[in-house]
């Protein structure tokens, strides 16, 4: 049985259980209710062992007996039913699609996409699996390029088809199909995640995938869930080291941290983090080391964000703390593009090899 089949079976079972729970309550003459883990801030806790945010033990009741809840209760059951249909038919849909589909049911249609997104999050926390497992996902924006041959499992029209990810010089969108594909053959020895498309493109043009035997991934800002899922699989299934390159500012630093430790928004889901991934740079300390690098002054907003992150449980080890302190001391930041001041290939020729050696050594 493939990984895909196992996940599919698992989710279908959980959905059926949920249906049976509601069915039996009604069958016994009771207005149905269900319990879901509370996502209020008081119930979001940092798990030291998993190195990510998780939900605590608080639960909230959602009951059809409460007329303030009965509509969202109905929506939740409908989304569950809709997800089970998607899985059975091997289809997927976007969050936006789901919202529009609900408009066919005037009695409980969603008022806006925010409402339908919230119900999806409810279902994720009840089932304990990411929405991608029940085939509902956001629009795709992140890309991948590198020597990796995959075999699609979804959609059924493409299932079994193979493709090498070097085939498209623009990179391929990381969507449900790539994130859930089977890995067939891999010529790469590492993965480099880059925060922005321009540098991703430079790395392809400079042949980084050959010189460093690397799979390149453009996270396009905060990495989407599919990308984080894929990164974890690349680490777990292929044992590839993961390196992350971002701007030298609190926002770049946090992109790396979320890939490593997870986000608070997704505290109800496990399996999206890659604790072994490494932040390659640009560090605050790099700004001191590479003195010729042009830098910019930090804004008030940057500094405020740094002070927030200093207290965040995900930043408590000495490395993160010292980087934050350095940022606060320098009050300067730099973009990855600033290496271009020393020539377009400087970042690939000079910086990358030195940092890889530093981090892995």
């Amino acid at each position, binding site marked *: 049985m493939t990984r895909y089949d196992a996940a599919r079976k698992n989710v279908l079972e959980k959905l059926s259980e*949920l249906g049976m729970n509601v069915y039996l309550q009604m069958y016994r003459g009771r207005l149905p209710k269900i319990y879901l883990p509370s996502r209020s801030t008081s119930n979001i806790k940092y798990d030291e062992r998993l190195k990510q945010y998780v939900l605590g033990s608080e639960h909230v009741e959602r009951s059809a007996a409460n007329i303030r809840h009965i509509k969202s209760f109905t929506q939740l059951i409908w989304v569950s039913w809709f997800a089970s249909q998607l899985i059975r038919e091997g289809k997927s849909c976007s969050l936006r699609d789901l919202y529009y589909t609900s408009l066919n*049911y005037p009695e409980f249609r969603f008022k806006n996409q925010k409402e339908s997104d919230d119900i999806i999050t409810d279902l994720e926390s009840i089932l304990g699996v990411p929405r991608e497992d029940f085939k509902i996902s956001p629009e795709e924006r992140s890309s991948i390029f590198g020597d990796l041959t995959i075999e699609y499992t979804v959609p059924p029209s493409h299932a079994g088809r193979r493709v090498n990810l070097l085939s498209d010089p623009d990179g391929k969108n990381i969507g449900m199909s790539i994130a859930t594909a089977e890995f067939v053959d891999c010529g790469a020895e590492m993965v480099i995640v880059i925060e922005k498309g321009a540098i991703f493109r430079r790395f392809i043009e400079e042949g980084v995938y050959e010189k460093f035997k690397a799979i390149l991934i453009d996270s396009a800002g905060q990495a989407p869930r599919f990308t984080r899922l894929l990164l974890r699989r690349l680490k777990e299934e292929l044992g590839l080291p993961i390196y992350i390159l971002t701007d030298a500012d609190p926002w770049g630093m946090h992109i790396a941290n979320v890939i490593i430790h997870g986000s608070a928004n997704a505290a109800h889901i496990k399996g999206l983090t890659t604790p072994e991934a490494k932040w390659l740079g640009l560090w605050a300390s790099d700004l001191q080391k590479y003195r010729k690098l042009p830098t910019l002054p930090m804004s008030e907003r940057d500094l405020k964000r740094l002070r927030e992150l200093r207290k965040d449980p995900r930043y408590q080890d000495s490395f993160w703390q010292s980087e934050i302190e350095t940022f606060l001391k320098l009050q300067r930041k730099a973009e990855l593009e600033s290496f271009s001041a020393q020539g377009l290939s400087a970042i690939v020729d000079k910086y990358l090899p030195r940092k890889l050696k530093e981090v892995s050594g």
Partner: protein
Amino acid sequence: MEERFRAISAADFFYRNREMAGFDNPVRSTYTICRELLENSMDACESGGYLPDIYMRLRYVDGEALEIKVEDNGKGVPRRYIKRAFGQVLFGSKYTLRQTRGIFGLGGKMAVLYGQITTNSPVHVISSTGGMERYSYKIMVDIERNEPITKGESIERNHGQWHGTVVKLKFQGDYARARAKIVDYLRHVAIIEPYSQIMFVDPDGVFYFFRRKAERMPRPPLEVLPHPQGVDVETLRRLIERFGQGSLIDFLVESFHRVGRRIALKFLRKTKLDPEMDVSELAKKEELIPKLVKAMNEFDGWLPPDPSCLSPIGSDLLEIGIRKELRPEFVAVVQRKPSTYGGHPFIVEVAIAYGGGVHAPSQGEVNLYRYANKIPLLYDVHNDVSMKVIRKIKWWRYKISPESMPIAFFIHVCSTKIPYKTVGKEYIADRPEVEYEVEWGLKEAARKLKLYLSKKRREESLKRRRAALLKYLPHIARFATELCGEKKIPDYEKLVAKEELKVKTALQRLA
């Protein structure tokens, strides 16, 4: 230079001070004339025990002037009183202690006087007490001498033994601007007296009809003697004159309300006066009278006045009146127990109407209908004791907002002496005793409204609940069944029925 003092007649006095009686401008005068004549008619009907049937007509005559005609089915004025009743100021039937609309019987004559000075025409009166004849008089007032002048007089056969009075007079007024107030006044009357029928034809030919909705009247008030606590020097002097000769104790027992020998003795012992002393002695010793008045006012051993001299509307009639004129969704009526202030008995009646034909008041206002001895009070609402109380009550405790909800308040104070604050008799002073009764009356009515509203809210929320269940349960049942792969959809209708049963028992518990 020596100042010249000159006595003026009562008619002259009121002529010079007519704004006191509500005749300060043409608009106000038009309203006051309608009101005074209508009230006289009401009194004539009620004191005769007849359900009032009143016809009032206003029309333009001789160009600018207005002519008013008011016809009632009251007990009529005996022939020998007609001239003086309409042509001499301060002559009237209202000088005993009993609850009546006016106090001095002044208003009707002021109307006559006003008509005379603005159009120089007489008042035309036709009246009969139900005998074989009816009498027709045209009268003017000799203002300087305060005497009636007869301008015409005739006797007619009284077909059908009609009883009642018709008054017709001309005056300079302004109906266009007085209309709103007059119609408002008639509506007020129709509310407080649902047993009366009023027809009004205005100068534009518009016909207003207030239908009778009750066939019984409140018990008429009884006449009573003055209460010793409310007596003043002038009243005491007159009572002494009327009593003539006899002992002081007999005087007290016979001239005052609820004074027996035992209490009279107790009082005289305390004031160190000889019970057997002759009353005519008192008349000679002028300085004794004010002392006696003070002692009578301050003595706390009197029995409280008997409220049988009062004629409240009664909860039933008040509710009928409010329902007929305003068609509210809910009415709470409260009649307070009789109370007294300064020796004057009074009863406060309060009602709150909600919803239906009652609309929320305009910004910053309150819908308040005020009455004193069945007279609507339409002016100076913001100075009235009722308004003071309404402002004081913490309505949120009753989940009521008088300024934003469709709520109307009704307050009727009846007393042998209404504590008016001004001569204009338009608002009631805040005597603590009256204020207390108004406040607790309003609070009691508010409690009833609160109960009604909370019951209504409960009912509505239960209805909403049922609708929501019917709307959503079928979907929940269907999708849950398909989700777990069962065949038979659970019987959600049974669930709804079970919920309905719960709703019903909950409502029964409320009722």
